[in-house]
């Protein structure tokens, strides 16, 4: 690859000239020879998805003139830090980049993402509506939806049965059962509320109807502490005050063990959760079940999304057409996208996959043979599509995590934390040059 890149300019020009000359001579005899198009294009792709090379190989096989170099530049925020450094330095950037839904708008704000609408729009109807809304602005398309995390609840059937806990359908029932479980077994909790994780909090607030940011050019409206978050804060504050739930950090050793040992009876999670759980819940295999996320209003079904990614072509790419093709092909090709669900266990955003019986009916051993995907497919179809992210989401997530984790541990209340967040975000947005409406 470096050899191709280091071919010096004069050489390139000469070869190019010879090809064009050859083509024009050949053109006289055989009209349709795509000579110039055969020039090899080299693309760089950043992603942290394990075993992704399998799909990249498929792409290269289908596109003999495009070579792709796959680089893992860190997961999530670590990659975004590198990406922003590259944007600042105007060098070292990939052509196509793995970007989570939550930061598509943030990178759009930096003019980092190419509008690939003219190639991508024809695929719009193939994707779940909410996912397309998150990457597009009218006919402009800034990234290709790739995988998602419609929210749901995983629970310990054994713990539920042992303490006579009934499956909560609404948040009110969830609170009742949490209190009941805490009384029956003081060191067992219905759930651990991961308030330090901005993404987790955001998904539950999204479901509750929180719409904190609305961006219109250089204007931003910020409404972080309205009626919805106040209701949400009061709900969890009550459970925290009664010590009916814990609020410890997630994705650390004690949390894994607590789930595996049944210290936490549920995990409020997303479509990628069921398979992720199998990586650490070894001793509790077969005891888990999946259920729909509890609802604020009984008789309605509203869901939201936590996590999930896109592939975005960068505006700085020297090969915009090929970069767009890479992003589009890797997220729409049937063979490649089916492989994501069977090899990497991504939760799909393509309607075809969401509707495929093979995906829906797959039994999961960890869940006693339950067809877990059905729960999350139902959730995916009910994700409220109107949610908008902020144009500085990494900041929002870390700040929210800070404030809410502190409040949940007993420093003030969650409601006060939301009030502080409102002021902090307004201040920050003004600092960053936005005209702020509240």
């Amino acid at each position, binding site marked *: 690859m470096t050899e191709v890149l280091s071919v010096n300019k004069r050489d390139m020009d000469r070869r190019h000239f010879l090809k064009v000359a050859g083509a024009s001579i050949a053109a006289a005899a055989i009209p349709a020879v795509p000579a110039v198009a055969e020039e090899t294009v080299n693309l760089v792709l950043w992603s942290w998805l394990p075993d992704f090379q399998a799909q990249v190989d498929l792409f290269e096989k289908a596109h003999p003139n495009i070579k792709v170099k796959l680089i893992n530049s860190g997961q999530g*925020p670590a990659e975004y*830090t590198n990406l922003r450094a590259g944007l600042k330095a105007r060098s070292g950037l990939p052509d196509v980049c793995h970007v989570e839904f939550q930061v598509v708008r943030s990178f759009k704000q930096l003019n980092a993402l190419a509008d690939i609408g003219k190639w991508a729009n024809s695929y719009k109807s193939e994707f779940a509506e909410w996912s397309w809304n998150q990457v597009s602005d009218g006919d402009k398309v800034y990234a290709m939806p790739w995988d998602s995390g419609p929210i749901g609840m995983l629970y310990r059937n054994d713990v539920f049965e042992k303490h006579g806990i009934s499956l909560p359908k609404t948040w009110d029932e969830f609170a009742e059962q949490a209190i009941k479980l805490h009384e029956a077994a003081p060191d067992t909790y219905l759930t651990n509320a991961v308030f330090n994780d901005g993404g987790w909090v955001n998904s539950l607030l999204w479901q509750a109807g929180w719409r904190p940011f609305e961006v219109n050019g*250089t204007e931003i409206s910020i409404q972080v502490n309205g009626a919805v978050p106040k209701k949400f804060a009061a709900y969890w504050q009550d459970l925290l005050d009664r010590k009916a739930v814990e609020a410890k*950090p997630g994705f650390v050793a004690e949390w894994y*063990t607590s789930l595996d040992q049944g210290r936490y009876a549920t995990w409020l999670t997303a479509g990628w959760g069921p398979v992720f759980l199998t990586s650490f819940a070894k001793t509790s295999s077969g005891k888990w079940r999946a259920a729909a996320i509890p609802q604020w209003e009984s008789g309605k079904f509203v869901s939201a999304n936590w996590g999930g990614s896109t592939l975005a072509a960068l505006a700085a790419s020297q090969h915009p057409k090929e970069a767009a093709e890479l992003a589009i092909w890797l997220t729409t090709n049937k063979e490649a996208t089916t492989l994501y669900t069977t090899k990497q266990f991504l939760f799909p955003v393509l309607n075809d996959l969401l509707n495929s019986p093979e995906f829906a009916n797959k039994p999961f051993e960890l869940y006693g043979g339950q067809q877990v995907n059905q729960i999350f497919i139902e959730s995916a179809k009910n994700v409220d599509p109107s949610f908008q992210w902020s144009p500085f989401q*990494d*900041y929002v997530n870390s700040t929210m995590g800070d404030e809410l984790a*502190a409040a949940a541990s007993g420093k003030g209340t969650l409601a006060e934390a939301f009030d502080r967040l409102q002021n902090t975000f307004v201040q920050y947005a003004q600092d*960053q040059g936005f005209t702020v409406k509240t």
Partner: protein
Amino acid sequence: MNTAASGTLASSPSDRSALTPSPPVRRGRGFGTTLVPYIFLAPFAALFLAFTVAPLVYAFYTSVFRDTLVGGTQFAGFANYLRAFSDLKFWGGIAHLALFGVVQVPIMLGLALAFALVLDRGNVHARSLFRLGFFIPYAVPSVIAALIWGYLYGPVFGPFTQAANWAGLPPPNFLSDGAMLFSLANVVTWEFTGYNMIIYYSALKAIPQDLQEAAIVDGASAWQYARLVQLPLLWPAILLTIIFSINGSLQLFNEPFLMRAIAPQVIGTSYTPNIYAYFLAAANQQYNYAAAISFVLGIVIASVAYLFTVMTNRRGGTAT
């Protein structure tokens, strides 16, 4: 000035030899000895320029601008510095570390000194085993150290909690607001005592044997020898480690940053000044302000180190 000095140095030996004072040789030697130190210094100088001076210059340049998501980059003069001087999050971090340093540095250096003095005694068995044992924590990468201590401090499944539960005692909470600085101080002490011990130990080894023999002849006890002979001779090494430790304390990053995963409710995004600067740059996209914060931190560290040196020099002056 340099060439003049080395010129005289170069000429003096050849003058002394006096037998073959041929001018070409002398000129050649003079030229060589002038350049040689710089050739040896060149690798260091190149790296120092590339990885210390250049980033400093760039950081300072960055710190006098303001780059916003809307509106782009404007010259800001010293506005970022003025903001840093009145930023409670920044000074809160400094306050954390001041408390941390005042408690942790004396304990760590005291232990290091004690270990070094004991190891230096002739009658210690398995000396190299102990020396290595004390030093090993320093060789453990801080990511691993944080994992080990994160497990030990675990509020539910940690061994101390388990032991307390077994004994029917209330479990200790190492990760509470009040305890966190001490839990961190414990990790840092564990990590760096051996490192400081090695510095003291080498300094002790450099003390001539004659002094010990003279002290023994004069009838000094081991304690008197340590207090009246070894400690004063160690003073420069102790001073060095204190300056290092002040520097290290105020720049604390790895340990609290890694502990943040298990105690995010205590270790926020501005717990120490370096963590604050990291989040300003990596998550908040406030690169300019992060650069200014780093410079102010540098000024604080330099001032504290300078004040400390002045104070100890004055005390040393009155003592002699």
